């Protein structure tokens, strides 16, 4: 292996859009000589390496992910402020695709929009509880399937999804 286990795990956690569990990492690495314990040790070591850094690895419900440490809010909010105006179109389209094509994966949304889906938008939708994870698709990486929630319908004053305006064929537009 060209890179150490530690470095590969670091890279995977950073490239991944979602937290990774130890068993997911074991599966991705697909190496008989590796066990969960070793992954766990590597993550601890990584975090030790990060002790002086502004980032660290945290464990959340679905696995491990990187987080910024406290004290950088002032900078980060300046970073995240930009580009809010262009945000709403992508937000609207992502929401519309999930509503009308559910259950869909992120990949499905990307395929339809032809553009990578912003992790922010998915997170926001999850935080708003407009969407939830309804399952996992049987394809590489077991991507999450998203569907809308009753809360989403509440926002639009609708009772059920079929109350949403119908989209017939696109040709006629």
């Amino acid at each position: 292996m060209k890179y150490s286990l530690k470095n590969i795990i670091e890279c995977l956690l950073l490239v991944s859009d979602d937290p990774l569990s130890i068993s997911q990492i074991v599966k991705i690495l697909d190496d008989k000589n590796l066990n969960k314990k070793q992954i766990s040790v590597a993550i601890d070591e990584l975090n030790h390496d990060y002790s002086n850094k502004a980032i660290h690895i945290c464990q959340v419900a679905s696995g491990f992910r990187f987080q910024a440490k406290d004290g950088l809010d002032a900078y980060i909010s300046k970073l995240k402020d930009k580009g809010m105006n262009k945000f709403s179109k992508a937000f609207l389209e992502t929401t519309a695709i999930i509503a009308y094509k559910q259950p869909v994966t992120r990949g499905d949304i990307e395929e339809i929009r032809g553009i990578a889906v912003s992790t922010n938008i998915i997170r926001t939708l999850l935080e708003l509880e407009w969407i939830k994870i309804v399952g996992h698709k049987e394809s590489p990486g077991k991507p999450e399937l998203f569907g809308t929630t009753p809360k989403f319908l509440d926002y639009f004053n609708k009772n059920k999804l079929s109350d949403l305006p119908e989209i017939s064929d696109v040709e006629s537009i």
Partner: protein
Amino acid sequence: MTEITAIYNGKAISDIPEDLFIPPEHLRIILEDFEGPLDLLLYLIKKQNIDITDLPIFPITEQYMSYISLMEEMHFELAADYLVMASTLTEIKSKLLLPVETEVEDEEDPRANLIKRLLEYQKYKNASELIENLPRNYRDFYVVSNAIETKKRNTMDIPDIKIEQLKLALMDVLRRAEILSTHNILSETLSVRERMSSMLSKLKGHENIEFVELFNLQEGRLGVIVTFLALLELVKESLIDVIQNEPMSRIYIGLKK
């Protein structure tokens, strides 16, 4: 006799016998493969290994016309640009047919402009292939972006969205999707999609659920149909397993493992 030769999925389909029936939809795909009249002309030229600087306008015009008439016969929605090219070709042809009255110096070859355009177009066709082959994010390399969770994330305000906007957004995106070579999107009954989501939620946390339990008879006939369609759709998308241990025994539905 019209020679039907075309490219389908990058492969040349040539010399199709006259009596061979090509389903209209199939032919449509063949013809849609051309990116316009120049593309079609380039194809005809390449096919015959013609020296473009000495473009034999007569046979090329003839072949071009037979394609056009074929497209018209198929009621293929012919872009006006194809007809413009047809008239350009005819014009060049007639100029070439005219007897040269006097030796006019510097009389430009009537084909010159067309040849120039074809070469120019070929140049950008090549360029588009170069772009196609450039390394791309997510295909050839991986960008680490937005990798870190921050506490103060969603301070942004959710725009005040009207339901109509949502619909328009989707129509917009679907329309746009047509230009990206992706799967076709068929309109589906929303209630089925909704049922698919709720069925997956219901199955989550259970090893499996008996088939009949998925149905709510109070929903009436339509509800049962919607549930059944959702079930079929989930099977089709390999999201669930349908398990029956022996014929005529109970059927169980579980999430795909």
